[in-house]
């Protein structure tokens, strides 16, 4: 039976590869959402139609959208449940902040500092992804989820005892598990559980949107490449994949490390958007939040995850008018959306309701089916 399913999947995949129409459509929608969203928000901000509250969320929205895209690579495309995404984000964020603070002393061109910081963040996060990936990618399903969860917590706890700062001679000092003597308050870069302080805000909406576009570019192209199809075929049937000579570990690790690097870049952008950043931010809740984006948008559906990430980032702020009942409302909305999007009865009802308004479309559908 497994063989039969594999055959079918391979057929589908091959068809997709030959025609490439699925890929084109997905890419068109994903880039479309990003570009239209960027232009609308930018125009709205320039016209003064968008308030400070939403403007302040432009960068976090892009960051969370990037995170959703990169996690989709592991959860949707590689088919592994990862609960440690915030860990990679943390590695990227603190690396980026450290690099930016050091470079700030000699460079004055912010975009250059930002790019170097992001590259450094991607590098460190991919190393973290590689180190954690090697031993755990033999694990599957729930076991992998538990280990990645533990990884996220380990990263956060290590960040809790790391100290960086400039001493009075301007030299970079590092300490583990104790504060550094002779470092003035304003020269502290990372101070254990207090985290990073005195960060210069370097992130901008344009930079963050470009980062999202880059993330999208990497993930979509990987998905549509030979390697991507190998990753997906392993997801669909590991044994069959091995039998035709695919190196399972290599492909799984590839997806995992790329995802980690992209999460590190997003984390760096996030870190450089606020003057302070504490390790507690990257706890289990943040990992789950990103996973919620992915699940809500449809596992493996890149643009669905993008929309879910943007909406769920804005939602708690849009609900501020409910005052005391804000978080309660947020939770209820989340549950309702989760149930509605996955309930076949409701889905069918909604489709029926929609179809009533689109007589033309029915024709198109039947036409397509006939063809």
């Amino acid at each position, binding site marked *: 039976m497994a063989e039969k399913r594999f055959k079918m999947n391979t057929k589908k995949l091959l068809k997709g590869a030959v025609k490439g129409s699925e890929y084109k*459509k997905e890419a068109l*929608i994903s880039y479309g*959402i990003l570009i*239209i*969203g960027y232009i*609308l*928000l930018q125009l*709205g901000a320039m016209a003064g*139609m*968008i*308030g*400070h*509250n*939403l*403007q*302040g*969320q432009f960068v*976090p929205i892009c960051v969370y959208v990037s995170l959703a895209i990169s996690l989709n690579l592991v959860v949707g495309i590689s088919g592994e449940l990862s609960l440690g995404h915030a860990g990679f984000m943390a590695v990227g964020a603190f690396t980026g902040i450290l690099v930016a603070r050091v470079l700030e002393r000699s460079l004055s061109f912010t975009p250059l500092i930002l790019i170097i910081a992001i590259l450094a963040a991607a590098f460190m996060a991919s190393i973290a992804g590689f180190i954690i990936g090697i031993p755990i990618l033999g694990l599957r399903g729930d076991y992998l989820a538990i280990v990645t969860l533990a990884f996220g917590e380990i990263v956060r706890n290590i960040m809790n*005892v790391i100290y960086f700062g400039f001493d009075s001679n301007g030299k970079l000092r590092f300490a583990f*598990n*104790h*504060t550094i003597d002779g470092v003035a*308050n*304003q020269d502290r870069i990372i*101070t*254990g*559980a*207090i*985290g990073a*302080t*005195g960060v210069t*805000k370097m992130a901008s909406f344009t930079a963050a949107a470009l980062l999202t576009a880059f993330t999208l570019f990497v993930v979509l192209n990987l998905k549509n490449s030979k390697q991507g199809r190998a990753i997906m075929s392993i997801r669909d049937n590991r044994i069959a994949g091995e039998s035709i000579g695919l190196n399972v570990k290599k492909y799984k690790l590839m997806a995992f490390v790329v995802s980690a690097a992209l999460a590190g870049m997003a984390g760096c952008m996030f870190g450089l958007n*606020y*003057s*302070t*950043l*504490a390790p507690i*931010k990257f706890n289990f809740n943040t990992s789950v939040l990103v996973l919620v984006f992915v699940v809500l948008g449809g596992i493996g559906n890149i643009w669905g995850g993008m*929309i879910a990430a*943007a*909406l769920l980032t*804005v939602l*708690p*702020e*849009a609900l*501020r*008018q409910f005052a*005391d009942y*804000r*978080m309660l409302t947020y939770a209820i909305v989340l549950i309702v959306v989760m149930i509605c999007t996955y309930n076949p009865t409701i889905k069918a009802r909604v489709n029926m309701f*929609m179809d009533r308004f*689109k007589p033309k*479309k029915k024709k*198109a*559908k039947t036409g*397509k089916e006939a063809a």
Partner: protein
Amino acid sequence: MKKNWTRFLVVALSVMMVFAMTACGGGSGDSGSSEGGDNVLHLGGTGPLTGPAALYGTAVKNGAQLAVDEINAANPDGVQLVWDMQDDEHDAEKAVNAYNKLVDDGMQIMIGSVTTAPCTAVAAEANANRTFALTPSASGPAVTEGNDNVFQLCFSDPNQGIASAEYIKQNYADKTVGVIYNNADNYSSGIFDKFKSEYEAGGKQLAAVEAFADDANADFTAQLNSMKNAGVDLIFLPIYYTPASNIMTQANKMGYNPTYFGVDGMDGILDLEGFDTSLAEGVLLLTPFTPYSDDENVQKFVKAYEDAFGETPIQFAADAYDCVYAVYDAFAKTGLGTDAGMDEICEAMIGVFTSADFSASGLTAEKMQWNAEGEVDKTPKVCMIQDGKYVEQ
């Protein structure tokens, strides 16, 4: 294929609708601020109203509300205050969002944020936007650093060390002083550093200094023996109440009974479960506010707070109450009307707060003054625990 496109269109449209709605929200907020012509001054603040730190945020919200109601009732024809507190979940990202929402809604002066990390993030934004901010309780030094528009009503962590050292030198000059502190904790080591340099400035020496690295530490025998051998009869404890309770219990078992001197982290020791509170008798602590004070104003405040909210106010509520009065008095001194913009008010308020002739008095201190760094200068209040209550010294 076409079906999917229409689906996409529906989703895209709903996305746009949500954005339009939020934009509208911002718009109506702006029109709210233009109503400032009715002599209304908008105060805003952010603090944790949900989550584990909600106790602090709620106290600030209620304490400030009490002061706002009093001011509005006392002078119905004068400047009327509006107080809007937004939840930041004790998270820097959410605090910036909450701050931006307040700006959209026409906030003119900020009271907050309540906790240090969110306040640090908000302070940078407020500095860029020129919002005047007076925080009731964010005591970390990073809050005011580089931000000329942010002021603290509470002592900053290092200044607690200075205030304690001065008090001990004045009132307990003949005691032999030792310190036990947590060297892995920024709060504790920050206070200790300043305490040591201030105490030893006059030629005095600390007889013994011992450190530990974890608040969960249960065994302090080594540290206590060192204190005892050095003849210490006053131990300064710049630590939280849980390790402090262990120290007191173990010292008592050793038959060693020095005087203890704590800072605001000691507040809460009487409510600690499983701790024999009789051991805390005679403990001195630096705290800006005690609900058991005989002070007439404090009693009035405590009664009003209990009537309105059904619980005894904590230090944070009193800090917020004082913040509102300080801001109200300073605003009157600027001579600006309530129709002034946020940035105009900010520059004027900085001028008033840093001027030598401005001082604010309230529940937590008399004649508080501020320096250009935004730190408060006030007489510390020291309480002694007697019969299970704080008694002001």
